[in-house]
């Protein structure tokens, strides 16, 4: 939203704003509203999931046991750790510590990439187990009611897939921030940008908490 590099390091608000406080509040508010829309986006899919979770409780609980709980838990830990480093990066940039900011951002990105790697490994594993009922792939389910279990896996792929898309977008934005941090032109502005992106990154984490809980933990 506010990606134009400012020409001076002196803090000047964008032309539509009266002062920096107003700008900061406006941007923050805009981001929170955007996150509310993201919540509703995932919420639509969670609503559908809830409907079927109630309709086929046993089948879904059984199907969940076919996911890899260890890797899922590991990923949850990784993601919250990356959120922690993101939060630390925000504090580092506010303290005008360039190297520290850079380090924290890079750690955040690395953990994010590892997360996606593990997720990809999980998908691959499920693919080899023939538990991937998409694109006309063979679906061989070793339990009762394969039709309804297929529904569980449908949701699993939609939710984790959409989440992975959001992660990837977050990673792209974080990479841009790394470039900005290396340039270190306007630290207060960079601080705002890191704060906004940190909100997004943490939100993706919140979504993951619910994906993890509903997909991995509600098992028989």
């Amino acid at each position, binding site marked *: 939203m506010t990606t134009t590099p400012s020409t001076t390091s002196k803090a000047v608000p964008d032309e539509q704003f009266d002062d920096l406080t107003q700008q900061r*509040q406006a941007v923050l508010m*805009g981001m929170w*509203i955007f996150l509310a829309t993201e919540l509703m986006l995932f919420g639509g899919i969670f609503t559908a999931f809830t*409907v079927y979770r109630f*309709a*086929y409780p046993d089948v879904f609980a059984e199907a969940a046991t076919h996911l890899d709980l260890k890797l899922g838990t590991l990923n949850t830990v990784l993601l919250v750790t990356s959120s922690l480093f993101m939060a630390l990066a925000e504090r580092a940039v506010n303290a005008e510590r360039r190297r520290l900011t850079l380090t924290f951002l890079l750690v955040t990105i690395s953990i994010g990439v590892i997360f996606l790697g593990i997720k990809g490994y999980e998908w691959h594993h499920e693919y080899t187990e023939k538990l991937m009922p*998409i694109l006309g792939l063979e679906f061989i389910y070793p339990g009762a009611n394969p039709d309804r279990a297929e529904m569980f896996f449908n949701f699993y792929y939609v939710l984790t897939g959409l989440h992975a898309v959001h992660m990837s977008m977050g990673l792209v934005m974080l990479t841009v921030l790394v470039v900005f941090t290396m340039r270190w032109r306007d630290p207060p502005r960079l601080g705002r940008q890191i704060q906004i992106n940190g909100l997004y990154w943490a939100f993706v984490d919140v979504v993951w908490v619910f994906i993890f809980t509903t997909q991995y933990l509600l098992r028989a």
Partner: protein
Amino acid sequence: MSEAAANQASESYLSSGWRIRDWLLTTDHKRVAWLYTISITAFFFLGGLAALVIRLELMTPDGDVVSADAYNQLFTIHGVVMVWFFLIPSIPNTLGNFLLPLMVGAKDLAFPKLNLISWYIYTVGGLFTIAAVITSGVDTGWTFYTPYSTQFADRAVVAALTGVFVVGFSSIATGINFIVTTHKMRAPGLTWFRLPLFVWANYATSLVMVLATPVLSATLILLILERMMGIGIFDPALGGDPILFQHLFWFYSHPAVYIMILPGMGVVSELITCFSRKTVFGYHGMALSILAISVFGFLVWGHHMFVSGQSLYAGLMFSLFSFFVALPSAIKTFNWTATLYKGKLIFSAVMIYALSFVGLFTIGGFTGIFLASLAVDVHVHDTYFVVAHFHYIMVGSMVTAYIGGLHFWWPKMTGRMYPELWAKVAALALFIGFNLTFFPQYLMGYAGMPRRYQTYPEDFQILHVMSSLGAGVLAIGYLLPLVYLLWSLRWGKRAPPNPWRAAGLEWRTDSPPPKHNFLEPQTVTGPPYDYDTIDNK
């Protein structure tokens, strides 16, 4: 300040810079508003053209103008274009974009670049859908009901869905922009209960856009995945439930109706107060009822599904809520009427538009009560009664408000006056044409004529012919303003800053306004619509 600098600052937003990039890369909300106006007008006439062919086809009971598939594609084009590319963005993105910053005394919207991007998203998404629909055809209707859309309609459904999905982001961007602008960028002294009702209406609309549109996006994602990748969430063959699609779809699409009508209510409130020369009756009630509609609008989506097979209790609940949501609308209608009481009424073209709105909205609103009544809805559901009802709201009311508003703020937007006499003719043509088109549809709806029928039993022909003739008159009512408004751009009289002696910050600046809207910061000291003070000055 030197004279040259002063001149430059006070130069109108229209006169500075006419290179292509000055328009296509502008971040000025007023220019973006124009970009939107142009796209929206194009889409409106495209959708209208489809409607005219449909009405032509329905002149006779047989399918003799177009083939059955072509007919289905036509009403799909009409629905998709009118709902997503015209009605939803219409007032917020044209008048709202232009006026919201002016009305709150801001230099621009909070995120001008986002505003420009939203236009690109909208236009690209819209053109993409149109291209898909025209080259390969989509015949699902604008509702995309499963399983027809996922398994049986063998055309460019995915492309159309993608286009609609993309356009959703433009709605969201606009919504965020408006909400933040209203919250954070009001002029000193402009408290919430001093805001013009137009701002209230756009604020409420934005809330609905922001909270409802993502659900549509989620639904469309599921639909696209189901169609492309075989992820069958709604597929009955996999134990899925097609009704779930309807729940998710209408969770967006019913509030979307309020996205369409609320801004119209805001516009009409402005017009009626100005030409009654007095403040609106029950300002607080008006503002709160706008908010109430936007919240209650989220609780009633199930009334689209009374015969679909949702549970009995869900039906009862949604019916009850649907009656509730009619209450604030009833208050508003009453207040508009009461605003006339002891006013000094001037029957300009704008006022005729506004009063047409009140009449048409009353009819459309009350037939909404018919549809909220379970037993009656079972009979008229999916018949022309419903078609007539929502056209009374969305075309009769909303488009009338839009065109009325366009006239009212035309001098502000362009610096030119439109020809008053022609405007009156157009307003009357619109009112008469509209009623002639859609009133017969109520009658044939109760008589049992289902909607989306290309051929029909001969008994209904007389009503269909009336309706088609009305559509012709209506077309004139829409084309006339297009002609004389364009004419006025060049030959219209120059407009003074405040030709209507109207209240509101937007009238304090020049017509057309300078780039940053106001030459000096504005403050507000009194309530809105203080026409007593203006007239007695």
